[in-house]
């Protein structure tokens, strides 16, 4: 089945085209690493896929439905630059809130389970305000995975995670892929991303200059893609 089908997407900020003519198709169970230099348009694309922003042109189908369809939104997990957690609520309350918003059956139980999985169970009652940056990122990851989404859109998920947390996240992603979920992640930490990704897309100034299966070269030399397909 096709998880994401994008056809000739254009996104302008004012007159500036942040995305130009983006077309690709991703099947379920695949993991796409969205690469590109700073300001290439990765975040913009992910936000459009998540339904947080509308492209001015082009057709987008996510999980076989219109983007912004409530049913498809329920099966998407997002993790953006902003961690989207409430500073004045505790870790547990944050997760419970999002579990309820996503209509999970037993929010409390689910929230506790994910706190445990992300290693935050000892601080479940502390306010997010008191968390260190890595702890926040862990909690944000828990929030994204909480409702067992079928499509995961992760924007630089490895940011500020320590070595153990990176292993943890890779494990979670591996599991999700094994369940035939689809993952799209953008990152600058190529080494960590390459272990998992089946596909690679390279954005360059809003255009897709490479899209396809992960080239074998990238495992040993992560910047290979930039050198061959990005303008130097």
């Amino acid at each position: 089945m096709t998880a994401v089908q994008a056809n000739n997407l254009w996104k302008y900020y004012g007159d500036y085209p942040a995305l130009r003519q983006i077309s690709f198709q991703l099947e379920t169970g695949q993991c796409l690493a969205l690469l590109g230099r700073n300001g290439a348009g990765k975040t913009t694309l992910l936000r459009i896929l998540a339904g947080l922003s509308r492209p001015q042109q082009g057709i987008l189908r996510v999980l076989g439905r219109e983007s912004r369809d409530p049913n498809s939104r329920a099966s998407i997990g997002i993790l953006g630059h902003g961690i989207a957690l409430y500073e004045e609520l505790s870790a547990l309350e944050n997760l419970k809130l999002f579990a309820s918003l996503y209509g999970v059956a037993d929010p409390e139980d689910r929230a506790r389970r994910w706190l445990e999985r992300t290693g935050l169970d000892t601080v479940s009652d502390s306010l997010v305000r008191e968390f260190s940056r890595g702890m926040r990122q862990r909690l944000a990851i828990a929030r994204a995975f909480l409702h067992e989404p079928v499509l995961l859109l992760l924007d630089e998920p490895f940011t500020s995670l320590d070595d153990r947390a990176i292993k943890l996240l890779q494990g979670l992603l591996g599991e999700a892929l094994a369940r035939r979920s689809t993952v799209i992640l953008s990152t600058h930490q190529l080494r960590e991303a390459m272990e998992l990704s089946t596909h690679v897309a390279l954005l360059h100034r809003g255009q897709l200059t490479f899209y396809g299966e992960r080239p074998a070269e990238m495992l040993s030399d992560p910047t290979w893609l930039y050198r061959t397909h990005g303008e130097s």
Partner: protein
Amino acid sequence: MTRERVLYLMGGISAIWLVRNLYVMLLALPDEVEQGAIYRILFFHVPSWFTCFTGFFLAAVASGLYLKTKNSLWDTLAVASVEVGVAFTLVGLATGSIWARIIWGIWWTWDARLTWALITCLVYMGYLMLRGAFDDPTSRAKNAAVLCIFAFTSVVITFKAIDWWRTQHPGAVLSIRTGGGRIDPAMEQMIYQNWPALMLLAAVLVAIRMRQETMQRELEALRRRTHAF
């Protein structure tokens, strides 16, 4: 252990003293000519205002010292004295209101002294409110201390209100402020008798609140330590 004994002792003394004062007030002193029996409320009205002003003054000093030394003991002293001070403010307001009801026929009027007394009460309630709103003890102590210093201005204004505005509320009566002559010496004597008794009571309450506060702090520390990441 000895600290506790001292506290009990002080509490006992103030209780006995207050009972003795009540006896003198109710049975030994005669009624006042114009007001009749109700004037006796003066013996609680005025000392409780003095006590709360003292408490607020103490709190302002403690807050200043906290900001200087960052020693949380000062902070504890500041809260405790504000809390006790607010309690005595409420006593002052209540006794004043009752008195007003009997002498003037209304509970409340927007007279400068009364209004400022209410404002002072509000300011210090704001202080307690602000404290409650912080989770982090360090910033709670710091911000509350700053507020406490600002707040003391309203105490000064309340105290001076009778001099600055023409008020319905009676002017100064104590001979230390007027140079004497506005009040019967026996009555004034009684105010001076009741004040230390109330102060002693206040001191006991402050000490108890300080102990409670310290214990709570330790409890919070234990909770955090067991839940470390």
